[in-house]
C-alpha cells in the first residue's frame, strides 16, 4: 500500500535488518587506507563535480522521461495508494525495480528524490570501481576510471534526474565486483549478493539482461578452471535473482497478458500491446532516425563520445581513446572488464540511445585507465582534460543543441525552493503548465489523446500517448482517418462472382510486407440487395477479434486490423447461422501505399462440433475503386473519439496535426481549451 506511514515502517524495518546483518561492518576503517596524496587527488577531482551534481539532483525534476513516466508512475501509484495496472502505456510493463525503490522517498521528498537516489547510486558506483581496482592492485587506474565515469556528461545528467540508468550501471558493476571477490576468495557466500544484484539489475531495466550472462559466464568459467561448482550456492543465487525478476514477469502476465510485456507480443498475444505497435516503437530506437540515413554504425563511437545530438547524450572525449586500453590486456582485470563490456553491449543494438551504454561504461573506463596508468603522467593529463571538458557549463559550449546534458548550474534559491518549485518548473519544463491545467480542469476518466507526452509526474491525469499501446494506436487510427490520405477510408475492393449459397466466407491475406491490413467496412450483396448484418453472424480472425464488429457497424472511421505486419495466412472469417446466397463482397479499406493481397474463400457447411468445414476459393473478379469521402469525415472522427471516451487532444505546436486542427476547429468539432508557446489543448465539443 502506498501510504507514507507504510513507507516509514518499511524503511525502518529495512534499516533494522541491515543492522541485524551487520551492514555497518562495511564502514570499518580499511586495512590499507589510501595514501594522503591519493585522497587529496581524489577530493580535487570528485568534489567539484559532486557539489554541482548535488545541486542538480535537488533541483525540481524536469527531465523528459523522468517527468513523463518514471516519476509519472510514482505519482500515479501514490494517488491510487497502490501499484496499479496502466494497460495503455508500454512503460508500465517495463520492470520498475529502481522506481519502486524510490517510492518511499518519493512520498516524503517528492519529485527530486529519485534523482538523489541516482546520485547515491553514482557514488556507490565510484566506490565500487575504486574498490575493485584496488583488489587487483590497480588503485590509480580505479580512481581514474571512477572519475571518467563520474564526470561523463551523460552520467552526470542521468545521475541527477529521475532516470534509472546510473542505478542499473551501479548494480551491474556491483555484481561484477562481488563476483571478483568470490573468484579471489572462493567464499561462495558472495554468490548470494551477486545473484541478488544481477536479478535486481534486470528487475530495474530489461536491457540489463546480459548481467545474468556475466553471472553465468563467471560461474561457468570458474567451473571450467576449478572443476568444482558450489551447486547449493549457485542454486540459491539463481533463486535470489529470480526472486527479483519473477514478480515483474508475474505482474505482466496477470495484468497485461504477456510476462515479457511490452516486448515479445508475437509470442504472447494480448490486447494491450501488439506486434505491430511493438515494432513501430522499437524500430526507431534501432536507428534514432539517424543510423542508416545520416549516420553509419562506425559513426556511433564519435556520436556517443563527442557529438551527442543524434543519440541523446555523450560520455566525453576521453572515451574516444578506449582503443588504447588494448595495451593493458595483460592485466586480468582489463580482460575481465573488456569481456563484461562486450557482453553488456549485446543488447545495445536494440536501443542506440547513449544512455543504454551506461552499464558498459564503467568497464570500458576501467579498461582504458588500466593501460593509461602504466604511462607516467598520462593518466593525470587524461583526467584533467576530461574534467575540464566535461564541467557542465563547459559541455554546453562545445556540444550541439539537442544533446542530453545538464543545463546551467542551479541557483541555491532554486534548490532551497526560495524560488517556488512551480516557477522553476514553468521555466524549465514546457509542458508543466499543461499538466497542471489537466489537473485542475479535467475530471478523472476523461481520456486525453496525445502524440507527444507531457509532464504526467505533476498531474494525476494520464494521457493515451499514441505509440505507447495498441489501445492508443486504435484511437490514432480513428483520428488519422480524417487527417492523412493513407489512413482515409477511400478504397473500395469489390469481389464479384457467380451467385452461390455459402455458410461462411473467409478473406485471406497472402502478402508479406511491412504494412498493416486495415479493413473498415464489409458489405455482402446478392444482386443489388445488400444482406443486412445479423447478430447471429459470427466473426473470427487470426487476431484482434474484439474489433471485428466494427466491420459491420457502418462507421467508416472504425475498423479492424490484426495489428501485425502483413503476413501470409492472416484472415477474417464470417460465418452465417444458415446458408445464404451472395454474389458480391465489398470491402472498404484505407488507401495506404502498401496494400494487402486478399483472396476470397467460401464454405458450404460447418459441423455442430465447430469443424470449419472445407474452404473453397471463390473464383471472384476483383476490382478496386476510389470511394468519395463524406464531407463531415472530420466530424465523424471526433464523434467516434468522443464515443470512446476521449475528451481532450494534447498537441505540441510542432506536432503534424496541430495546424490542421487550429485552422478547422469547427469542421473537426474541437475548440482550443488552453494554449502556450509550445502546446495546445483541444477539447472535443460535446456530442
Amino acid at each position, binding site marked *: 500500500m502506498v501510504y507514507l506511514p507504510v513507507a516509514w515502517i518499511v524503511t525502518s524495518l529495512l534499516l533494522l535488518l541491515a543492522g541485524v546483518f551487520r551492514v555497518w561492518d562495511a564502514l570499518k576503517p580499511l586495512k590499507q587506507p589510501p595514501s594522503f596524496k591519493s585522497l587529496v587527488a581524489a577530493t580535487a577531482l570528485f568534489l567539484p563535480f559532486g557539489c554541482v551534481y548535488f545541486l542538480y539532483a535537488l533541483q525540481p525534476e524536469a527531465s523528459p522521461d523522468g517527468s513523463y513516466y518514471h516519476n509519472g508512475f510514482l505519482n500515479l501509484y501514490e494517488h491510487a495508494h497502490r501499484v496499479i495496472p496502466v494497460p495503455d502505456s508500454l512503460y508500465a510493463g517495463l520492470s520498475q525495480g529502481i522506481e519502486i525503490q524510490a517510492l518511499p522517498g518519493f512520498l516524503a521528498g517528492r519529485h527530486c528524490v529519485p534523482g538523489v537516489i541516482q546520485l547515491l547510486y553514482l557514488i556507490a558506483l565510484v566506490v565500487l570501481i575504486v574498490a575493485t581496482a584496488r583488489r587487483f592492485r590497480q588503485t590509480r587506474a580505479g580512481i581514474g576510471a571512477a572519475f571518467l565515469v563520474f564526470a561523463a556528461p551523460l552520467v552526470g545528467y542521468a545521475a541527477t534526474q529521475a532516470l534509472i540508468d546510473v542505478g542499473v550501471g551501479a548494480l551491474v558493476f556491483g555484481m561484477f565486483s562481488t563476483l571478483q571477490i568470490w573468484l579471489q576468495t572462493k567464499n561462495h557466500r558472495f554468490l548470494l549478493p551477486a545473484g541478488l544484484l544481477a536479478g535486481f539489475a534486470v528487475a530495474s531495466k530489461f536491457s540489463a539482461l546480459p548481467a545474468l550472462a556475466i553471472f553465468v559466464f563467471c560461474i561457468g568459467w570458474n567451473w571450467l578452471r576449478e572443476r568444482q561448482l558450489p551447486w547449493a550456492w549457485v542454486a540459491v543465487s539463481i533463486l535470489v535473482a529470480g526472486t527479483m525478476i519473477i514478480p515483474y514477469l508475474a505482474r505482466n502476465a496477470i495484468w497485461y497478458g504477456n510476462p515479457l510485456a511490452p516486448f515479445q507480443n508475437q509470442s504472447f498475444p494480448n490486447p494491450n500491446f501488439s506486434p505491430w505497435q511493438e515494432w513501430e516503437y522499437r524500430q526507431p530506437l534501432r536507428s534514432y532516425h539517424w543510423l542508416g540515413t545520416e549516420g553509419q554504425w562506425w559513426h556511433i563511437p564519435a556520436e556517443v563520445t563527442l557529438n551527442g545530438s543524434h543519440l541523446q547524450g555523450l560520455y566525453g572525449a576521453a572515451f*574516444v581513446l578506449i582503443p588504447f586500453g588494448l*595495451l593493458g590486456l595483460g592485466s586480468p582485470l582489463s580482460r575481465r572488464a573488456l569481456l563484461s563490456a562486450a557482453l553488456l553491449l549485446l543488447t545495445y543494438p536494440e536501443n542506440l540511445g547513449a544512455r543504454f551504454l551506461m552499464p558498459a561504461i564503467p568497464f570500458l573506463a576501467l579498461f582504458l585507465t588500466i593501460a*593509461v596508468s602504466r604511462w607516467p603522467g598520462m593518466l593525470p593529463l587524461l583526467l584533467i*582534460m576530461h574534467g*575540464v571538458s566535461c564541467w557542465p557549463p563547459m559541455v554546453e559550449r562545445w556540444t550541439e543543441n539537442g544533446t542530453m546534458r545538464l543545463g546551467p548550474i542551479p541557483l541555491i534559491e532554486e534548490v532551497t525552493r526560495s524560488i517556488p518549485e512551480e516557477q522553476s518548473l514553468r521555466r524549465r519544463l514546457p509542458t508543466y503548465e499543461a499538466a497542471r491545467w489537466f489537473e485542475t480542469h479535467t475530471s478523472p476518466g476523461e481520456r486525453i489523446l496525445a502524440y507527444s507526452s507531457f509532464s504526467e509526474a505533476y498531474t494525476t491525469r494520464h494521457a493515451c500517448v499514441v505509440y505507447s499501446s495498441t489501445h492508443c494506436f486504435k484511437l490514432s487510427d480513428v483520428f488519422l482517418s480524417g487527417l492523412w490520405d493513407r489512413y482515409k477510408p477511400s478504397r473500395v475492393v469489390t469481389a464479384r462472382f457467380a451467385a452461390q449459397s455459402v455458410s461462411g466466407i473467409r478473406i485471406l491475406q497472402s502478402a508479406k510486407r511491412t504494412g498493416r491490413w486495415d479493413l473498415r467496412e464489409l458489405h455482402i450483396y446478392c444482386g443489388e440487395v445488400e444482406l443486412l448484418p445479423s447478430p447471429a453472424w459470427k466473426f473470427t480472425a487470426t487476431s484482434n477479434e474484439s474489433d471485428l464488429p466494427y466491420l459491420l457497424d457502418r462507421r467508416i472511421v472504425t475498423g479492424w486490423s490484426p495489428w501485425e505486419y502483413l503476413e501470409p495466412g492472416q484472415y477474417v472469417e464470417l460465418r452465417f447461422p444458415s446458408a445464404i446466397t451472395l454474389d458480391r463482397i465489398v470491402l472498404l479499406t484505407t488507401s495506404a501505399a502498401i496494400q494487402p493481397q486478399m483472396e476470397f474463400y467460401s464454405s458450404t457447411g460447418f459441423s455442430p462440433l465447430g469443424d470449419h468445414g472445407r474452404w473453397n476459393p471463390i473464383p471472384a473478379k476483383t476490382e478496386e475503386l476510389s470511394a468519395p469521402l463524406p464531407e463531415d469525415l472530420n466530424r465523424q472522427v471526433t464523434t467516434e473519439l468522443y464515443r470512446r471516451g476521449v475528451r481532450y487532444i494534447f498537441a505540441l505546436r510542432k506536432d503534424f496535426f496541430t495546424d490542421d486542427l487550429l485552422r478547422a476547429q469547427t469542421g473537426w468539432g474541437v475548440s482550443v481549451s488552453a494554449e502556450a508557446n509550445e502546446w495546445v489543448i483541444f477539447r472535443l465539443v460535446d456530442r
Partner: protein
Amino acid sequence: MGAFMLTLCAFLNRARAILVRGFLVTIRQPACWVGAILLAYICFRSVTLDFCHDEALSFELFVSGGLYKLFGPYDASNHILYSVLARLSRGVFGLSAFSLRFPSLLAAIVFLLAAVSFVRHWISNTWWRAVALVLLAGNPLLLDHFSAARGYGLGCAFLAWSIVLTCRLTLLDHCLVEQNRSVYMLAVALGLSVSSNLVFLTSALAIAAWVTVVFLANAVRKGTPRAALASLYANGFAAPAAFLPAVFWVLPLRTATPANFYVGFQKLVDFRESITGVFFPPGVHGWDFLETIGTLVHAAASVVPVLELVLGLTILALGVIGFHWVRNRPVSLATANAATACAILALTVGINLVLWQFFGVKLPVLRTTLPLVVTFNFAFVAGLAALAQMDFPRRLLGAPLFASAAMLLISDISATPRSYLFDWPYDSQNVEIVGVLEQESQKLGHDPTVLTSYYLSRSLRWYGERKNLSWLKNVPFPWEQTRPPKSYDFVVLYPNDPIPNFVPDSPPWRRWEISGVEVYRNP
C-alpha cells in the same frame, strides 16, 4: 651547534666549489656562450617585436575568453599545447605580448638545451661546437618562432629532443629494454611535438618509423628478450607517443574536415614546384650555397616533376642501406649518428612528398617548413661531426661553414627589427593608426565607430584589449557589419584587402596614409 655550523660551512664550500667549477667550465665553452647569446637575442625580440596579425588571431580565438575555445571547432591556427601554456602564462604574468610569447621562450630554452646536448655529445672541438650550435639554432626562420606567440616554437623544441634521443637510442650497443626511461622520454617528446602543432606529425611519423626499425633490429639480435622488447615498444613508445597528442587533439579534431589539412591542393606532379623551392626560400636561411643547391633541385624538379619523389625515395633507400652498413661495420659512432639523422630527414622529406603527391597536401609552405628545417639542421650538423672525425680536411670544410654560420648571424641581426611575417600588420602600425583615430575622435566628442579590413581587425582588437580601449576591442570584421560602411566614423583599409561597398570619394573622406594603411574619416 658547532658541529652543525661546521657541516653547513663544509656544505656551502662544496656547493660553491661545484658552482664555480661548473661556471668556469661553462664559460670556457664557446657553445654555451653562443647559446646564451641566442637566448638573449630571442628574449630581446620577445619583448621588443611588434605583435603581428597571426599572434593577435591566436590570442583572440584560443587564449582569450572561456576555456571552451580550446576545444574547437577545428582551426589550423589552434596550436593547442601553446594555447594551454599561454593561458597559464597569461594567468601568471598578466596580459602582455611577452606573457603570450613566454611559452615560445621556454621552447627556445628547451631547443637550445637539446642543441647543446647534441653538439656536446658528437663534436669534441669547442669552437666547432659553437659553429654547430649556430647552424642548428641560428637560422632566422627558427628564431622567429621562438619569439612569436604561436605553437611552432614548442613543436621545434620537442622535435629537437626527439631527434637527439632517437640518435642516442639508435646507437646503443646494449639492449633497448634497459633504456625504458629514455624510450618513454622520446615518446613524450614526440607526443608533445605533435601536440604543439599537427604539422610536426610528418617528422614525428618519420622518427616513429625509424624507431620501429631500431626496435626490429634489436629484436633480431640473439639473446634479446623479445617479449619485453615488444612490450617496451608498445607500452613505452608507440602508445604514449600516440596517446599524448590524442588527448590534446581529440576534441578540436572532432569538427575537422579534410579541407582543414590542405587536402586537395594540386599534386606534386601537377604543381611544377619542388619541396626545395619552399624549403630554402631565398633570404630566410641566409645560407647561400645550400639555397643554390635547392634552387638547382627545384629547377630539375620543375622540368621532371616526379624527380623529387624519386630522389626522396632514393635517399630513403640509401638511409636504410646506410643504417644496415653502419650496424655491420666498425664505423665511427659519429658516422652512424649522421646516418640516423639523415635517415630521419629522408623519411620526413619522403612523407611530405608522399602526402603532396598522393593526397594533394602541400605541407611545406611558410611556417610549415619548420619540421624540415629542424630535421635538416640536425642531419647537417651530424654529417659535419662525422666528416670532422673522418680527418676530412678541416680547413676545406671549416671555411664555408664558418662563413655560413657568420652569414646566419648576420641574417639574424638584419632580421631583428622585423617580425616573422614582415608584410602583415603590426603593433607599431597600430600605434600610429590608433593615434590618428584617438586624436580625431576627440573632435567627435564620443567613442568612434571604426570599420577595418579583415587583417587589421584582429590586430586592432588585440591592441584595444591590451590598452583597454572599449571602442577598439569590438571592431567588427567586415562580414559582421550590420550597416553601410559610410555610416562609420572611420574606415581603415589595409593594402589589397578592400571593404565591400566602400567608396571614399563621394563626398570626399579625409585620408591619412600610415605605412601603406589608409585611414579615412567620414566627412
